């Protein structure tokens, strides 16, 4: 089996799993309990928070544990909206290539009277920060721009946007779900007020994520519950997953450069090979891009068919965005790069991780080449 869909989710590290199991099997206490068992859990929670805070360069009490990226994003946006409502600022700026977690939350706000501006990126998938600057006005409550795109991997000018937002006194949130696995994110350097990410994209478990929120801004809870997470996110803490997330992020951070060099090397090798196949094109900017992602289209080759034939060879890649039925819809990201529906439907995403090898990418190339030729023979 060759797993090349790491932008969807990743394999959990053994060390991470071990750290997790300890808090499921052994020290399973509730961190709110005053006894020793509870205190052990509380200590683990504290350590995890400190580890993560150090890596993204914030204070531990600026970290809020959530169930994952979508929850963090929703809370970040709704908190900003609720602040905006109280301060008569009902305008939010975002981009048209955000994840549905962002777009659908904004859609719900739009239905409630907010004005939403979605900046369209250029045809390489990069958002122009000057466009954002020109849209900011006295009513603007929030700018939310993803750090890196999940389908084409393009990295957005976050530092510039952060700088503009700070200057204009506008809140800035960034969906860092994809970026956190491959980039060094520093909330101070990047002028970020809020960021969201989840553990399962960097070899941690599913169902756990964080929302970083700067001290000077008060979040609105989505889940009230008890006093956990300083009253901003109720519910008994998922200690095992929190510990595992901290472990995964620590491993990731300690090996970042080494892993990135490797992933980029095999990605570039694979990409160059794939481009030797006739009528193939890379979607999105090739420079300002995560090291792990290839979004490529083969003219006249339906991605749906290509994916299934690769699946039969036990090679797992991705295409478009699956809706709840499991059928593939043309990707809104690719459509925003001015690709036609047909071009979008002929595009696949290959996303690599530290676990992929030179041999694997060589196999991916030869299988894709064969299948593309085979499918084209039916045209």
């Amino acid at each position, binding site marked *: 089996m060759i797993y090349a869909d790491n932008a969807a989710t990743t394999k959990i590290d053994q060390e991470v799993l071990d750290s997790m199991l300890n808090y499921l099997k052994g020290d399973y206490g509730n961190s709110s309990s005053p006894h020793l068992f509870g205190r052990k859990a509380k200590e683990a929670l504290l350590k995890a928070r400190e580890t993560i805070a150090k890596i993204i360069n914030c204070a531990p009490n600026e970290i809020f544990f959530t169930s994952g990226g979508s929850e963090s994003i929703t809370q970040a946006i709704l908190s900003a909206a609720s602040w905006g409502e109280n301060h008569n600022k009902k305008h939010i700026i975002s981009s048209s290539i955000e994840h*549905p977690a962002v777009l659908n939350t904004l859609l719900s706000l739009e239905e409630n009277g907010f004005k939403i501006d979605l900046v369209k990126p250029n045809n390489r998938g990069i958002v122009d920060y000057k466009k954002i600057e020109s849209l900011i006005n006295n009513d603007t409550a929030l700018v939310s721009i993803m750090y890196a795109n999940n389908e084409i991997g393009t990295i957005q000018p976050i530092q510039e946007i952060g700088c503009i937002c700070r200057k204009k006194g506008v809140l800035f949130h960034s969906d860092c779900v994809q970026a956190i696995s491959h980039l060094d994110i520093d909330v101070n350097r990047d002028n970020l007020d809020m960021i969201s990410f989840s553990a399962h994209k960097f070899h941690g478990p599913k169902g756990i994520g964080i929302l970083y929120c700067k001290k000077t801004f008060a979040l609105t809870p989505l889940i009230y519950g008890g006093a956990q997470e300083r009253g901003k996110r109720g519910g008994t803490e998922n200690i095992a997953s929190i510990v595992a997330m901290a472990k995964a992020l620590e491993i990731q951070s300690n090996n970042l450069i080494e892993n990135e060099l490797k992933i980029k090397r095999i990605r570039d090798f694979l990409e160059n090979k794939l481009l030797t196949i006739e009528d193939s094109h890379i979607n999105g900017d090739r420079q300002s891009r995560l090291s792990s992602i290839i979004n490529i289209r083969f003219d006249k080759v339906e991605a749906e*068919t290509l994916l*299934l*034939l690769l699946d039969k060879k036990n090679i797992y890649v991705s295409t478009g965005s699956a*809706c*709840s*039925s*499991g059928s593939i819809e043309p990707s*809104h990201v690719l459509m925003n790069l001015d690709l036609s529906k047909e071009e979008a439907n002929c595009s696949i995403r290959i996303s690599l991780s530290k676990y992929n090898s030179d041999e694997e990418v060589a196999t991916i190339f030869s299988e894709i080449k064969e299948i593309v030729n085979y499918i084209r023979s*039916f045209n």
Partner: protein
Amino acid sequence: MSRMMIAMSGGVDSSVAALLMSEKGYQCSGATMKLYEDESSSCSINTKSCCALSDIEDARSVCATLGIDYHVFNFKDKFQEQVIERFVDSYENGLTPNPCIDCNRYLKFEHLYKKARILGFDKVVTGHYAIIEEIDGIFYLKKGIDPTKDQSYFLYDLNQEQLAHISFPLGSLNKSEVREIAEKHNFINAKKNDSQDICFVSNKKYSQFIEEYRNKMYPKGNFVDMDGNILGQHKGIINYTIGQRRGLGVSYSEPLYVHKVDAKKNEIVLCKKSELIKKEFDVKNVTYTYLETPPSEMKITVKTRYRQVEQNATLFSTSKDTVHIVLEEGQDAIAPGQAAVFYDGDIVVGGGQII
């Protein structure tokens, strides 16, 4: 071992088809075509809603029960272009369309069929009540044995190449037996009602669907008699089909029927029942299931709509793909746009579109 792609709608028939093929030892995969937007579910950003989600969940559940693979294919664009557009266009031109035949022809047995072949499947399997029988290397399409369910009418344009790569496992069963099998296997959809109407119209009048789809209203016009005398006003031609009696709102000494929908003049021609009857008509785009060349003349039975007993007739070829049909006895409401399907006993000879 042969690989079978089972086209699954989420209904009981195609589910039992999947079961029967699995039990025969074939390597099966289920596939559902996502064809149109369903208002009851929503999922994506750009489209308000998508697909008949509950049907898809039913098909997925049956496949999980059978332990077979399952996929959903997005055919929305093709369905819109080749089925819905044709349907609306027919009404706008005063014809009576049959979207189920178009869906079989273009979606199931063209796009899905092609996809199945590319993906390495040997055959496409559907839950149609019809039989394919091979005799001396020729594939014959025959009526299903359950006279109340026989669906051979909808399949008349299958050719030899297709018939060789299609299987209809339900053709030799009665509907009641199919339900029993589904219940015995505790299929989630065992008690689900049969689909009755045109799937994408869902609980609307056709005219309402067409108006919403085109986002326009159709102008009122005149009801006229066979001599062109004005009898009243109609509500837009898309509200009427040949043979219709109800809802005309014209008072006359005897019941009146729609004789003709004249799209050009925006007129609906009405007639008495006796005047609806025709003995002869022409058919275009004719295809034959097993004959290599069109017969110059042939005794057949013919159906001019789905729910109809076949009528004795003689077929005369007028060109490679047109025929003239002479019925033994007159037949009412022969509607341009509908399919005329030719039978030789239980065997489907071919068919085409009534002009």
